[in-house]
């Protein structure tokens, strides 16, 4: 089983898209490529579980380690644990959905699909990397497509948003780079497996952890580096929003997790700051969402709040909370992608995203409205949907820390679910329910591709929401492995 296939398939798809002619060919190639990828991810899951069942307890499966730049000890080291696999599955689902909702993109369609596929390639590469250099490489690969997607196909103040997003993400990756250098020059390797084995001196950890963690934090919309999120998401075209919130923000969360595992001492030392920032992000994001009037802004701000849970879970540094953080990443990815898909569908019909100008859409487009409501309910953490599982796991985990301030952080974050209910219901009440305006009454409901995309994402949400033991089973051994490193602390907090 060669994981490089995960990068090759999008690559080939991208090349084929460049060679194709006409929207029809391009989108079919894109869809086939993304479906192949989905199938590949599914097959990976199957072989992963089979290998685990066969008693293969290695931390990373399907490992392959090739020398890349020998002189600098940079290797193309790939492998996959349960967490990475969960992320890969998430990515592949969102990519298929993203291609489906872009089915009728006729403006520069070749470039559009090409960039979408390129973006997904970056994400896949990122998740399978076991070498920090390749990790960083793929992290940055995914930035430029975002810039172009927003800037060219976006709406509103698109160039400004695109610029802000690209610059802030680049600033984040610059910080990451400094952190990685720090690791490299004190361990002489980029290989995460080796680094965890040999450990990093505590002083080095303490100096470089903030760089790397905050750098990834920018990607994960950590307060106060989140300001690219609202504008970026709001301006992006539908599929790009989905990718951005569904995949790209996860790169940050995943990176933060890996960094915490690499530098356990620093993670413990700084955990209170991480938690502080995450709590602020959660509460602040939720209240800021409450005041938004644009559907995309609502979802974007709520993403800040939800991604705060990821960081909170990581910052709490115990097994349950980290499990929760991972589930929250997957859950938020699916949920927010679904949300953006629904908003995109509404926008393409009504040509407005302002809540005040919408109303009673349930009457004209029951399917889209239902999708919207489902996304909303998932967002506010309703049992049966993935959001509940994720948030509750984070709460349970973070509550395990008996320190009073940590407790307070948990309670405050918990309070955000009330605020979430407020803004979700406000938006739903205004846009989906209530009286419908005459001009919207005759709009058509979702088309087959939109329905398929929504169903796919909802299926993902439901699988996690109804059978969380599945994903738990997948990621738990990997979290255990991470905890092994995290508990190897040499300094007492």
């Amino acid at each position, binding site marked *: 089983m060669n994981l490089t296939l995960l990068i090759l398939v999008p690559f080939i798809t991208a090349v084929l898209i460049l060679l194709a002619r006409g929207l029809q060919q391009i989108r079919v190639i894109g869809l086939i490529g993304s479906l192949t990828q989905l199938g590949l991810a599914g097959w990976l899951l199957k072989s992963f579980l089979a290998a685990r069942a066969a008693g293969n307890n290695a931390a990373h499966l399907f490992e392959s380690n090739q*020398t*890349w*730049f*020998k*002189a*600098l000890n940079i290797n193309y080291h790939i492998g996959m644990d349960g967490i990475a696999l969960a992320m890969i599955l998430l990515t592949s689902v969102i990519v298929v959905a993203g291609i489906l909702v872009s089915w009728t993109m006729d403006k520069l369609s070749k470039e559009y699909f090409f960039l979408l596929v390129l973006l997904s390639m970056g994400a896949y590469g990122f998740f399978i990397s076991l070498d920090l*250099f390749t990790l960083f*490489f*793929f992290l*940055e*690969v995914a*930035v*430029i497509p975002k*810039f*172009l997607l927003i*800037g*060219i196909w976006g709406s509103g103040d*698109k*160039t400004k948003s*695109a*610029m802000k997003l*690209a*610059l802030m993400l*680049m*600033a984040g990756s*610059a*910080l990451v*780079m*400094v952190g990685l*250098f*720090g690791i*490299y*020059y004190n361990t002489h390797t980029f290989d995460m497996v080796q680094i965890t084995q040999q450990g990093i001196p505590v002083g080095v950890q303490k*100096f470089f952890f903030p*760089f790397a963690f905050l750098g990834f934090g920018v990607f994960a919309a950590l307060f106060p580096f989140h300001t690219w999120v609202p504008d970026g998401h709001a301006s992006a075209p539908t599929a790009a929003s989905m990718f951005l919130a569904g995949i790209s923000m996860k790169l940050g969360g995943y990176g933060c997790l890996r960094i915490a595992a690499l530098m356990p001492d620093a993670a413990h030392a700084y955990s209170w700051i991480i938690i502080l920032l995450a709590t602020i992000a959660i509460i602040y994001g939720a209240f800021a969402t409450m005041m938004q009037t644009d559907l995309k802004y609502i979802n974007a701000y709520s993403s800040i709040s939800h991604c705060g849970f990821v960081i909170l879970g990581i910052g709490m540094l115990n097994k349950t909370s980290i499990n929760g953080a991972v589930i929250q990443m997957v859950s938020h990815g699916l949920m927010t992608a679904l949300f953006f898909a629904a908003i995109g569908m509404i926008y393409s019909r009504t040509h407005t995203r302002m809540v005040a100008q919408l109303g009673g859409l349930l009457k004209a487009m029951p399917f889209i409205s239902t999708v919207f409501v489902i996304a909303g309910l998932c967002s506010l953490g309703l049992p049966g949907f993935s959001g509940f599982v994720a948030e509750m796991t984070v709460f349970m985990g973070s509550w395990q820390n008996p320190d009073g301030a940590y407790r307070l952080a948990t309670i405050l974050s918990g309070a955000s679910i009330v605020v979430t209910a407020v803004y979700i219901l406000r938006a739903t009440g205004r846009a989906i329910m209530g009286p419908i305006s005459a001009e919207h009454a005759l709009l058509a409901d979702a088309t087959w591709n939109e329905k398929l995309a929504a169903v796919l994402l909802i299926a993902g949400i439901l699988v996690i929401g109804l059978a969380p033991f599945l994903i738990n089973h997948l990621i738990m051994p990997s979290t255990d492995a991470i905890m092994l490193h995290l508990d190897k602390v040499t300094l007492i907090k």
Partner: protein
Amino acid sequence: MTYNILIQLRQELALALLIFILLFIKLGKDRSNESILNFINAVLFINLAAGFCCHETGALFNGMFNTNALIVFEKDLLNLALLIISMQSYAWLKESKNVIEFYILTLTSLLGMFFMISSGNLLMFYLGLEMSTIPLAAAANFDLTKRKSSEAAMKLILSSAFSSAILLLGISFLYGTSGTLTFSILTAHINGNPLQLFAFILLIAGFAFKISAVPFHLWTADVYEGSPVAVTSFLSVISKAAVLFTLVNMLYQVFTPIANTWYLILVVLAAATILIGNLFALRQDNFKRFLAFSSIAQVGFILIGISGSSQAGSASMIYFVLIYIFSNLAAFGVVSVVSALTGKENISDFKGFYKTNPMLSWVLTIALFSLAGVPPTAGFFGKLFLMMAGAAKGNYGIIIFAALNMVVSFYYYLKVVKCIFMDENTSPIEKITVPTVSKIAMYICVVGVIVTGLANVVYDYINSISFGL
């Protein structure tokens, strides 16, 4: 023995021969520009290919002239750059009346650089330096009728004469304190007394002037803007690369006893260069001026790499220069074609460029991304390796500073991309028919930009032939 000389001097001899051939062609009957250009490009290609054929380590003329695998490779890089520039300038040169003069000037300058790189003696170094500079001043004035061109040439010749004077003063003090001009003997006499340090600073200032490190960079932007695009490319890529190679040779081999001193100087220069280059690049609208400041910022990164004073330092520098040749020349190639065929050189003229010229837009975009250091282009690897080399010294301050500056640089590169792809324009530059030769050159650059990074062989080879302190 004679045979040996031929091998070791073969690149210089080839250039000299070519210059003579061109002089004879000039004397002979008039030929069409196309045939001359095709001939020259073919010869340059053969010259480039021949460069790779064999190399030998050795010294000639009592250690005046050194050569080894690294030096040969460096010269090959310069040959390659010249070939690409020549191909890209096809459209411009075709219309020019003085094609042969252009080549004579640039080839002479290149020959000077070769000697400079190979020099094992301060006198040889000085001669090579001047030989490479003076023809360039003349070349900068190549657009005889343009005001800006003569202004640029004037600024170049005066500034470089001044810098030569400073450099010479430095050399004279070095001579005074050591009594020798030969590098191998000089090293033993370097003891770091104040006069020697002062002399060294003067010498470094001369180098810094050539590679346009702040605050010795001020001529750069004006000269780049005023000169014809081909000359600008030459200045920004070849001339800089040659001096960088020489600088590394000298620092790593001659001034080893005062390594700590020059490390500090390099860090200070690097910080200033990156910062000022970036801050000025932010505001530029003229494409050449913009690229001038961006190249200044790039030099700052190179200085960080050099300051690592290790094998990785010199390898990453050469590697980056190779990447820089591809990416900067790809950018200049597009500007050159556009400028030759439409006369437009401003960034704002490129608004909506993608609608009319998608191919050129992509070339330019990829080039800019490579300059900005975005994967998967090679610029990413180049910049990262430079910074890794620099970080090896443990001075993370400069690395953090450089990392933050990368963000600033990202802004202005993206601004250009934004212009090309996103800005609306009612009258964009019309569709441009690119001459095939130039197109090939651009493709070479683009392929180079992508392959150089991802394929590890390039770096591995460079690393295998480079050496550290």
